[in-house]
């Protein structure tokens, strides 16, 4: 097998803090299940979109919680985040999301969408596995850096699976400052 030329190697090499440096399917926008159901007229796809909502919500929360916990662990006196009740609740929600994902019946047309959810779940799991071992000190910095990339990657996958019309949306605007008469 021939070695790739220098340009190809450079182009394909990511910096350590790049979220694409991690293995696995890349985060990429996929057809929204709500739009697919309209174009294909498929009740199955519509049901899939409906079944996605609790999984999406679980993952949205797990990513938000893990992000907050990482900030607190890195910047504040709250070093023992593994012992916080919020960390336990986060893990429980992640487990629940995994069970729901396992039961999710994804028609062929939305397999790409489900793959994004699977990846978001997987990267969250990788972070959760490291939380009990988090320690202060120089080595912790390296570990935090790794988890930073992993949480960004998890978010990128969930963002790729977002579909506002199907209720898969990162922000609830209902009572936001902008929620006016429309």
């Amino acid at each position: 097998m021939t070695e790739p030329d220098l340009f190809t190697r450079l182009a394909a090499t990511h910096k350590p803090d790049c979220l694409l440096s991690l293995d696995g399917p890349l985060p990429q926008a996929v057809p929204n299940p709500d739009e697919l159901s309209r174009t294909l007229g498929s009740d199955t796809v519509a049901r899939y979109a409906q079944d996605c909502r609790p999984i999406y919500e679980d993952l949205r929360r797990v990513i938000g919680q893990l992000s907050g916990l990482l900030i607190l662990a890195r910047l504040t006196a709250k070093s023992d985040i593994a012992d916080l009740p919020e960390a336990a609740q986060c893990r429980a929600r992640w487990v629940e999301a995994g069970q729901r994902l396992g039961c999710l019946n994804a028609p062929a047309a939305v397999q790409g969408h489900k793959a994004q959810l699977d990846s978001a779940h997987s990267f969250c799991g990788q972070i959760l596995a490291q939380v009990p071992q988090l320690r202060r000190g120089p080595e912790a910095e390296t570990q935090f850096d790794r988890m930073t990339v992993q949480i960004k990657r998890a978010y990128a996958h969930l963002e790729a699976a977002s579909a506002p019309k199907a209720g898969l949306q990162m922000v609830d605007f209902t009572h936001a400052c902008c929620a006016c008469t429309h």
Partner: protein
Amino acid sequence: MADYSIWVLEYCYVSKYHKSGVLYGAHNQGYVKLPYCYVVIKGRDHVAMVDVGYNDKAYGKVLGDRFGVENWRDPKVVLAEVGLTPDDVDTCFISHAHFDHFGNVEDFPKAKFYIQEREISKWVWAMSLPDRMRWMMVAVDPGDIVRGVGLAAEKRLVTVDGAMEDVLPGIDLHSAPDSHTWGSMWVTVRNDGQKQSQDTWVMAGDLVYQFDNLKSSGAVVDVDTMYTPVGLAVGSQTNLILATEEMMSQVGYEARRVIPIHEEGLRDAFPSRITKDGLRITEICLADGEKSKVA
């Protein structure tokens, strides 16, 4: 003598916002324009901002289609109106973690960000609650917290626990726990640099939406004016009132020195102009030697 220039820069707006959102209890009283703004504080070799707006790439279509948010402009365009670029900004004070205040950190690559620790920790707590309590997670994007992790990794995020004096010379941070949000924060500029300042300005974040929150009719309790809190509070209206009293005491009860950033009426209290993009630039004060950007 003034150390800092302060401008309020509009970056988009909602033309018709229900008044009860702005003013607690103002039901069936129609609509008001709700500008979305951030604040620039320039002086003492610093360019600081209070809040950074939101990222239109992420939310623009939803906000436009569903909520009538109009005329969003990139910080490059908005800051240019006062002769600055996002790269010039070295410090950002985040009043709270709602997406329209904390949602565009990526556009300020050289800034260090300050936010209350409680804003993060209570968010983590709120996310752990059952779905039936989801209201408490309103208007916060997990993505903004994810970006906060990135800022922490780059050593560009500082979590503040309560008040912090002289974050920049003459600029203090104050917390208003369990008010508009869990860890809302206001920024006080002592523009003469004195501890007992005679020239104090308060950037209120969303603790005050409009001047009506500071001076609305007090007929119901037989006074001329009274505080009426904003409509949205995940904490309590009581805590909003207490924070308002503290802000007002810092400025000697001169209401125009508490600067709300959703207030169209700034144009009546300060010099301002409309840009070619149809957004308002309001000049709160000028540092010694600084030229007006609205003249």
